[in-house]
């Protein structure tokens, strides 16, 4: 039986293109442009889904992109919304959330036991005894949720694009279209977005059986489509409002991030269902849903129906139904006085019986609750909110259209920080105070007649022009006259309940009463206890009624109840739209490709990728690290240190700057000498350390740790502004490569490729020389961090690989071995050198790590000095010591961060610990009681399992220093 009717002006279907698809194993046809719901409804299918909790049969409710009772799967995608997704040829669809099909769903029995499952049931029934909870949780988790995710979902990359405009207009109803045209005519660049397949908003469906709306729409669209200043995006919803007018517009193929100078929200309203028993049967639908089916898809919503209303919109719906050939046997008006406008005369003139002061007491289900068989009508006292079923009659019908009022689609306004107020004239929340640059127009602004909405759009556009400093007109909007578009309380109690407030979550009127009795009588608490508005439509058809019900229960005006918080996203947004490529660039050293070829395993250090160790066949990671470290101790190793931060300070005040910035002394530093540099913050906490080299009287070269480089440089720049010293500060981190050759044979190897004398007398530890290696100008530094004979070679990045290769060749006969950061950590530990940020934390002061020697306390000033003077007066709380475990230790290995205990008191923690093959012991650093710092002192480490391991304080370095040759 086809419900398709003759061509409607502006219909959204293309009758030239017929598509085939299946639903629940049965074949159907559709026209191009049909949604899944409209195609099925056209074919006479009424049960399109099962409800979330009670598994009740459901049909279309709103056709407004939030009919979440109709969710389907095609086996790959799931939770496809029937009123949003267009039919594609060959689709094989099934309803989600059923066992054994939508009609024979084996979970339908749950509806009959629903009195046993009141709201809050889960919270109360399953939390004790606690040991049974995992059992119940398993069952509840299976019952909850809708579609099943297919983990073989094909990977589809959705594009992300950005656009900028003067004004973004959201919503293409009459207010939005007019706003866009006025703004565009004044020369603004306008982006216009609408979630529907076609623009027009209510003009596309709310026509009251007349042609005015359709002709207004074609007039406006004729101008919009040809306007060069307007960019129109349909089938694209504004998903959220983010600071400074950044609004993601989500379309089928991706997200467009719109950055606008101003935003006009003309998002309209959501129709709200009146609440009565069995208002959820397939065939009971919102009036606007019936209108959408008729005018967009040329589908008859039902054949012989009634309209129940509490505003003038029900009369408009009746006229549209009549025009579509639907028999309207009665119009039930819940208002005692009914409707006084010409609409009412029109409806009466067409022979529809109007029952004023009456309500639908209950809808009567057909067999299996698969549809509507009739309705029980009785008188209704709208002031006392009392139905009088003793005075009732029954009407036969196969459908009910409901129109009782609206709720503003104000999610974006709320997200932007709009203060809303409850307007008594329209019985609706409307904007009271809008944030800067955000404007509202049309029904969301409480403006209802077509003429007024057009005026309101023009007014909003002029306000945008004024906001942007352009010439603007004063546009006034006529005051609203006529009956209220929304009824204050369209809710009919029924002793047998099943009068649904929230169709997503199957919440009935009595559930709110129960929640309030339990004490959850604040809107946010009530939301969480009943779960109203927490379903996939996020309360688009239920929050307003929930607020009205709570207001009634508490005897408060609606505005005292307030609303729940609106958060992005406005519609369910597939995660694929949000997922993206990781824009997380890594910095690579000049030798990166060499390390890769040599089998390096890389690790992230700050923004850099560094070689952690080099894989060797048949060796574990730990064995490789020990081997690499041993090569350094026994002969020579080479490591790429190119990621270290490198800065140059030049100028007359260069030494003065370093004196103030670092704790040590640099004014007395000789040219060609390097010094340790300890950086503190103003509270005296150790932040970083590095090496300062003096290249000339007024030129210093500084290296700092990789991960702190950006922050250290930033602080240098800031202090420079404050101190106003005469220096030039340059970050040369990427400009220089850095190679460290270390071990007893380092001097021999480096000596082969440079003419510089490397003798102790010519280049002592801590010296820096500018020289040549393999024909390339380099800075050569004698250092001692990982062994006491090491050369750091700083070379312009472009030449670094050349020098690296020359050193590898020179070291070949000595078995030179590249080592990574893991071996480096072990080597510096063997040397007894702490790592700032590893052996220190955000509270560590220099005294605790034994760095008194690095402090120039007699200088006039350095950052942190004043705080150290205070700290020095106080007793130390802990000190960092070197320790060893007993020889041949074979107990439970302590880890970094295991606590150091003295009796039952925490005294400190382990900061570094490792087995060292060179020492043949487990060695490490730990903070201990300041009384226990002398070599030979014992302390206890508590391991993860709680057992105690004894450790002995020793003097560093752990390894015998090599003499070299």
């Amino acid at each position, binding site marked *: 039986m086809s419900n398709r009717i003759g061509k409607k002006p502006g219909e959204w279907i293309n009758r030239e293109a017929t598509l085939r698809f299946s639903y629940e194993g049965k074949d159907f046809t559709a026209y191009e442009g049909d949604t899944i719901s409209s195609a099925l409804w056209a074919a006479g299918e009424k049960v399109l889904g099962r409800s979330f909790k009670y598994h009740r049969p459901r049909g279309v409710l709103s056709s407004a992109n939030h009919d979440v009772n109709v969710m389907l799967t095609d086996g790959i995608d799931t939770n496809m919304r029937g009123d949003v997704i267009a039919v594609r040829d060959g689709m094989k669809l099934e309803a989600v959330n059923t066992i054994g099909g939508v009609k024979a769903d084996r979970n339908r029995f749950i509806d009959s036991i629903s009195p046993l499952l009141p709201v809050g049931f889960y919270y109360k029934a399953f939390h004790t005894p606690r040991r049974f909870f995992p059992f119940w949780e398993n069952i509840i988790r299976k019952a909850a949720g809708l579609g099943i995710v297919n983990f073989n979902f094909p990977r589809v990359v959705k594009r992300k694009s950005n656009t900028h405009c003067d004004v973004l207009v959201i919503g293409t109803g009459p207010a939005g279209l007019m706003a866009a045209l006025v703004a565009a005519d004044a020369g603004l660049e306008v982006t216009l977005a609408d979630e529907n397949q076609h623009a027009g908003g209510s003009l596309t469906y709310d026509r009251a059986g007349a042609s005015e709306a359709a002709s207004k729409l074609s007039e406006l669209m004729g101008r919009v489509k040809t306007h060069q200043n307007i960019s129109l995006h349909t089938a694209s919803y504004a998903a959220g409002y983010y600071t400074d007018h950044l609004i993601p517009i989500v379309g089928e193929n991706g997200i467009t991030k719109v950055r606008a100078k101003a935003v006009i929200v003309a998002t309209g309203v959501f129709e709200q269902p009146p609440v009565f028993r069995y208002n959820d049967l397939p065939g009971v639908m919102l009036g606007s849903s019936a209108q959408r089916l008729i005018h967009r898809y040329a589908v008859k919503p039902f054949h012989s129906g009634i309209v129940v209303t509490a505003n003038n919109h029900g009369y408009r719906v009746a006229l549209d139904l009549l025009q579509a050939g639907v028999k309207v046997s009665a119009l039930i008006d819940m208002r005692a006085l009914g409707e006084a406008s010409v609409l009412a005369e029109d409806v009466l003139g067409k022979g529809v019986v109007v029952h004023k002061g009456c309500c639908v007491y209950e809808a009567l289900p057909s067999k299996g609750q698969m549809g509507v068989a009739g309705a029980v009508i009785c008188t209704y006292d709208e002031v006392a909110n009392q139905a009088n079923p003793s005075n009732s009659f029954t009407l036969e019908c196969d459908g009910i259209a409901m129109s009782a009022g609206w709720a503003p689609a104000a999610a974006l306004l709320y997200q932007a920080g709009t203060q809303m107020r409850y307007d008594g004239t329209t019985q609706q929340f409307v904007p009271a105070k809008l944030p800067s640059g955000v404007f509202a127009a049309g029904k969301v602004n409480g403006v209802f007649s077509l003429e007024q909405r057009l005026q309101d759009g023009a007014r909003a556009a002029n306000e945008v022009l004024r906001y942007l400093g352009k010439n603007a007109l004063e546009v006034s909007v006529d005051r609203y006259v006529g009956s209220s578009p929304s009824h204050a309380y369209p809710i009919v109690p029924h002793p047998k309940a099943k009068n649904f407030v929230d169709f997503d979550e199957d919440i009935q009127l009595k559930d709110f009463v129960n929640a309030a009795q339990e004490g959850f009588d604040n809107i946010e608490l009530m939301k969480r206890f009943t779960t109203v508005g927490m379903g996939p439509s996020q309360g688009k058809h239920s929050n307003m009624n929930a607020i009205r019900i709570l207001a009634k229960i508490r005897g408060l005006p609606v505005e005292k109840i307030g609303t729940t918080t609106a958060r992005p996203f406005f519609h369910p947004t597939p995660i694929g739209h949000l997922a993206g490529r990781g824009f997380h660039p890594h910095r690579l050293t000049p030798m990166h490709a060499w390390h890769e070829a040599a089998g390096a395993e890389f690790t992230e250090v700050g923004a850099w990728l560094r070689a952690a160790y080099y894989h060797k066949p048949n060796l574990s990671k730990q064995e490789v690290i020990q081997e690499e470290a041993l090569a350094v101790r026994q002969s020579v190793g080479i490591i790429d240190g190119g990621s270290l931060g490198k800065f140059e300070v030049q100028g007359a005040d260069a030494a003065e700057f370093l004196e103030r910035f670092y704790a040590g002394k640099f004014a007395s530093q000789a040219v060609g000498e390097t010094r340790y540099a300890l950086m503190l913050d103003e509270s005296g906490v150790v932040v970083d350390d590095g090496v300062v080299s003096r290249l000339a009287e007024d030129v210093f070269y500084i290296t700092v740790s990789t991960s702190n480089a950006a922050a250290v440089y*930033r602080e240098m720049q*800031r202090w420079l*502004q404050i101190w106003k010293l005469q220096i030039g500060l340059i970050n040369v981190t990427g400009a220089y490569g850095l190679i460290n050759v270390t071990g007893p044979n380092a001097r021999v190897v480096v000596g082969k490729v440079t003419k510089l004398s490397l003798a102790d007398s010519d280049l002592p530890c801590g010296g820096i020389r500018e020289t040549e290696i393999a024909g390339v100008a380099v800075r050569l530094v004698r250092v001692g961090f990982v062994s006491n004979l090491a050369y750091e070679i700083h070379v312009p990045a472009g030449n670094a690989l050349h020098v690296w290769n020359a050193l590898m060749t020179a070291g070949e006969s000595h078995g030179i071995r590249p080592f990574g950061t893991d071996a480096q950590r072990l080597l510096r530990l063997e040397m007894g050198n702490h790592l700032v940020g590893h052996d220190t934390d955000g509270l560590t002061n220099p005294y605790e790590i034994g760095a008194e020697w690095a402090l120039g306390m007699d200088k006039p000033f350095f950052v942190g000095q004043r705080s150290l003077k205070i700290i020095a007066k106080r007793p130390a709380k802990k000190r960092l010591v070197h320790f060893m475990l007993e020889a041949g230790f074979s107990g439970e290995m302590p880890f970094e961060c295991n606590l150091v205990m003295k009796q039952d008191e925490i005294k400190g923690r382990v900061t570094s610990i490792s087995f060292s093959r060179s020492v043949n012991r487990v060695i490490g650093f730990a903070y201990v009681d300041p009384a226990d710092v002398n070599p030979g002192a014992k302390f206890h480490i508590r391991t993860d399992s709680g057992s105690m391991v004894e450790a002995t304080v020793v003097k560093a370095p752990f390894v015998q220093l090599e003499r070299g040759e």
Partner: protein
Amino acid sequence: MKLLQCPMNGTRPISEFVFGGELRAMPNPETSTDKEWAAYVHNRNGAPGLKKEWWYHGPSGTWFIAERNTLTEEVLRTYLFGQETAA
């Protein structure tokens, strides 16, 4: 995403900036008492309102001062340190 005006580079997204804390005058380390110094180092005024703050534009390495109302999230003006009167 919030936008912020760098006095040298114009309006840029907030992800390009680093917050540098409130602009506060350092007491004289020579003459201040331990208590005064500790208050300067450790105490921050968390009450919302108009604040002068350090901000850093990362890509260009520019430190500047932003006058920001931390209650309304409005940035009234930005200028380079020491150029308040010229701004």
